């Protein structure tokens, strides 16, 4: 039975020749925690997960998983962990059933348990009807679901997921997120990397923000959001496609206006008194207010304020750095 900190990382560093990919990062993950590693492309997320799981060797620093040193006792560690990489780890030439069965065999799952668990996972991941099809014909989303199923078949205590929903459709992403939540509630520890801010916000109990190989901060999503609250934001929309940013920016208390699709984000010093001003603005311009709301800071705001990175750097594909 695991307890306390199940992942302990101290001054972990990775160089690829002269390129510093991960720079002296330290953190702990508690037993049964759902821990997120959030960062833009090339931040060092995959490199970190590879070092934590024994796929690559750190240049310096220590990794202890459930008390075992990953360098000194790798097999002990691998008995406890499950790893679903970002790049497909499933065999195109095998069927879905054979892929899961192979992973179960490699982790010493008994034949009886293997059969039952494989059937259950194929159903959970909606792959049951395609179980005897070669994986080479599967979509990216199906392969990803299969990879995660093949990781969960041996019921690891600590699961590492590298970008579990990257490139997936909404339905597949939701399925995977729900399963992660459910398994976490049943006691599995998760370490997941993601460049989707929403995903980290919805799933993770704590989030580490990594940028350019360094951990910028580690906290709960709510605390991170609070730390980003420097201004009040109000979101308003009118019944016209015309750009009103200029006129709105002249309103009292408004320091900045950002147009987002058909809405305007007003950065205001004080909420009180803003509502009559907006109603008056609409009347004067013969407009109707179609929606109005005050906005709380998002994890995206926290990310931007902590890393000074534009948020669109998060919404790309996989890290370009080759971790192998």
């Amino acid at each position, binding site marked *: 039975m695991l307890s306390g900190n199940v992942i302990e990382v101290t001054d972990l560093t990775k160089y690829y020749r002269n390129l510093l990919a991960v720079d002296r990062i330290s953190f702990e993950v508690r037993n049964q925690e759902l821990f997120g590693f959030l960062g833009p492309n090339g931040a060092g997320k995959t490199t970190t997960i590879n070092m934590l799981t024994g796929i690559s060797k750190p240049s310096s620093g220590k990794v202890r998983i459930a008390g075992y040193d990953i360098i000194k006792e790798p097999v002990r560690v691998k008995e406890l962990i499950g790893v679903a990489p970002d790049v497909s780890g499933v065999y*195109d030439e095998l069927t879905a059933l054979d892929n899961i069965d192979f992973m179960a065999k490699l*982790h*010493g799952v008994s034949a009886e348990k293997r059969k039952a668990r494989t059937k259950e996972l194929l159903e959970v991941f909606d792959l049951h009807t395609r179980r005897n099809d070669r994986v080479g014909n599967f979509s990216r989303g199906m392969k990803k679901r299969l990879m995660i199923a093949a990781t969960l078949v041996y019921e690891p205590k600590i699961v590492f997921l590298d970008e579990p929903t990257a490139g997936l459709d909404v339905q597949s992403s939701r399925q995977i997120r729900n399963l992660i939540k459910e398994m976490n509630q049943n006691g599995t520890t998760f370490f997941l990397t993601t460049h989707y801010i929403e995903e980290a916000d919805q799933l993770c109990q704590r989030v580490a923000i990594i940028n350019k190989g360094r951990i910028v901060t580690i906290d709960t999503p709510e605390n991170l959001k609070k730390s980003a609250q420097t201004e009040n934001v109000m979101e308003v929309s009118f019944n016209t496609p015309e750009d009103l940013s200029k006129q709105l920016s002249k309103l009292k208390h408004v320091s900045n206006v950002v147009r987002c699709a058909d809405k305007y984000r007003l950065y205001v010093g004080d909420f009180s008194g803003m509502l009559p001003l907006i109603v008056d603005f609409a009347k004067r311009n013969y407009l109707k207010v179609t929606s109005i709301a005050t906005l709380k800071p998002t994890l995206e705001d926290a990310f931007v304020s902590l890393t000074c990175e534009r948020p669109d750097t998060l919404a790309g594909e996989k890290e370009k750095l080759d971790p192998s």
Partner: protein
Amino acid sequence: MRNRIIEDAKKIFYIAEKDAKIYFFKAPNLTFGLVLPVVLYLAFAIGRTVDAAFVVPGIVAIAAFFGAGAIQSVSLPLERRTGTFNSLVTAPLSLFEIMLGKALAGFFFGIVLSLFYMIIMIPFSFVSNLIFFALGIVVSSFMFSTFGLFLSAPFKDIPQAMPPATVVRIAMVFLGAVFTPITTLPAVLQTIAYALPLTYTVSTLRQAWGGNINVQMFLIDTLIQVAFAIFFLAAATKILQRTME
């Protein structure tokens, strides 16, 4: 402890079984493995008079050599490129055990191809010591499979791995005294031939097939091949470990 060894042995076998299914026992690879020894033999034999007892061990050796090792130049780099190798690395096995599993797949394939040639050649020539010949096939198939891993270990993709492996193999066929008695080679080439693992395979198979068996010599040749196999497997593991860092 005993249970652990049995469990690990099973996992090694599962890797071998998976590799055999995915990479080795496929129609194109079987065709390649069956055709190549004949092509190489014909390239040598057309226009010459050759004794079947001399040629058969050479053909069987080539079947083991290419059958056991050539596909390794594809399987390991391909697994590294596609990322499936990481699934093996994160399983509770050492890297050496993973490589042993991969070596066994080539070993089985090499045995099947060599036995095929051994059987179809029996009507044309007399095998004087079947047990020794079979032992020669078993040892050499394992050695050639580890040799294939050794050649492919530094590379992360097939286009990088194939050219050097092919050049080395073809050179070994001509320098390893497969179709020419080693004593007929110039002194320099004889020295090179003695450094090549294929030379010892041909020597053991030729002794067992032709009937001039010298048990002591046979055992020395076999032990040299075992030593080569251990070296290739250990070196491949070490090289792979380095390139994974």
